[in-house]
């Protein structure tokens, strides 16, 4: 009996210890932790690795970056499970704002989407200036197209382009959905020699291993805009409002914008993102 008793005592002590560990991290979570839900492109391109440490140093907050698609990031915001969002899906963002889920939506930066594909270009879209015309040619040729299929900002943009063509690619044998992030989808497209729509930042970051080429670019429809949104504390009292405010202010501050402007130039020969803070909202969405 004695042994069982001491075993029970030991278990109780362990539970108390664990509770202590959890309790202390909970206390910290209240004040200094900031959950940033963002798109994969800001992480996969390496931009956040550059910016987050600077923000943490200057503000004292500890940023928990959760890199998911823009769709999931906004879903987290809608549930109050994130404090601040950095996303690129303007139409969905406007719905998010209209539903009162967020406050202070601010323009941060842009780059553009590009249509990439294998160098031999079976659908013959190279040099096409209109994204819709290129998509129509891909559909007409029945050439393999890889879609993100994950409600990310890129997927939303791709669906927008398909909508503009008047075609419904869903269910077609040449249209496949990966359900993966941008980097992984580019890898799948490279392996299967298919076309895909990618943000320029992620494409440039992965270019060296892909063997895919930019075939269509420059259509105003392909503009890719990033906003920072603070999750509405009125709806979710547990949201770290001062932290979210500080992060948003950091993203649009002049020194940060300067870092965004020069990010990637040394490595890729051209900038990955163009700072936009304070500029008027672009219209091509």
């Amino acid at each position, binding site marked *: 009996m004695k042994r069982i008793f001491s075993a029970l005592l030991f278990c109780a002590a362990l539970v108390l210890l664990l509770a202590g*560990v959890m309790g202390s991290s909970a206390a910290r979570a*209240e004040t200094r932790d900031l959950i940033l839900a963002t798109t994969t492109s800001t992480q996969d391109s390496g931009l956040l690795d550059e910016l987050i440490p600077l923000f943490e140093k200057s503000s004292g907050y500890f940023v*928990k970056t959760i890199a998911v698609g823009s769709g999931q990031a906004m879903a987290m915001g809608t549930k109050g499970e994130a404090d601040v969002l950095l996303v690129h899906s303007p139409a969905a963002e406007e719905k998010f704002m209209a539903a009162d889920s967020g406050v202070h939506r601010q323009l941060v930066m842009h780059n553009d989407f590009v249509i990439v594909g294998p160098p031999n270009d079976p659908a013959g879209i190279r040099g096409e200036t209109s994204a819709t015309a290129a998509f129509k040619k891909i559909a007409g040729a029945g050439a393999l197209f890889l879609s993100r299929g994950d409600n990310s900002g890129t997927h939303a943009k791709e669906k927008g382009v398909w909508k503009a063509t008047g075609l419904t690619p869903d269910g077609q044998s040449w249209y496949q959905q990966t359900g993966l992030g941008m*980097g992984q989808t580019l890898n799948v497209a490279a392996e299967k020699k298919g076309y895909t729509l990618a943000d320029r930042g992620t494409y440039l970051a992965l270019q060296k291993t892909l063997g895919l080429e930019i075939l269509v670019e420059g259509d105003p429809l392909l503009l890719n805009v990033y906003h920072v949104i603070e999750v509405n504390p009125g709806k979710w009292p*547990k949201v770290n409002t001062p932290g979210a405010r500080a992060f948003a202010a950091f993203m649009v501050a002049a020194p940060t914008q300067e870092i965004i402007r020069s990010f990637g130039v040394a490595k890729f020969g051209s900038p990955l993102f163009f700072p936009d803070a304070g500029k008027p909202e672009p219209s091509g969405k």
Partner: protein
Amino acid sequence: MDLIAEGIAKALALLTSFDPEVLGITLLSLKVSGTATLLSLLVGITSGTLLALAEFPGKRLLMSLVNTGMGLPPVVVGLFVTIFLWRNGPLGFLGILYTPTAMILAQGIIATPIVTGITLASVQNLPANLKLQILALGATRPQLVWILIKEARLPLLAGVMAGFGGVISEVGASIMVGGNIKGYSRVLTTATVMETSRGNFDVAIALSLILLLLCFVINYLLTRIQQRERPR
């Protein structure tokens, strides 16, 4: 093939230079999965032994549930732990989502049925009259349980290896409840996924090799212990 060679070279470079980030990721993997395995041993060996020795209605059903749990998909565990730990979820007051503590919890849940199932099988596999013999020698019930666990230690160590192997190689739950946060909750598996999607295949291969090496070292040590204690 070049890629794999590059990966091996990169792994050697990262290992020999003691790259602080890779070292931190490796130590965290070890810490999270090690703690989770210890917790699962505590719960799993206790409940597995009890389940093996006790007789009660519904025992077969419970045993089938444990055996099903041995194949518990990590993403399912990850999803449910995430939902429970959300700020506005039932356990949100703990405030541990996206922390290593949450990863320990999720991995512990994954490893516990594995350890329980193997404990159950190994205690049941002991010769039937061993129990009678021990009782006949005048052992109390706790003494009986203790002796049986000691007798079953060889397969139990296999349970430790299976549990640890299951969680250190797991990625779905870790990325969901840990968030893969740099320098905080990034472990070898989640870092490998991220480096792959970044197209840094050489780093991804290097991390994989470090993971394999780590698994090998741990299992080598456990096997040494297991075989040393083998009754001859």
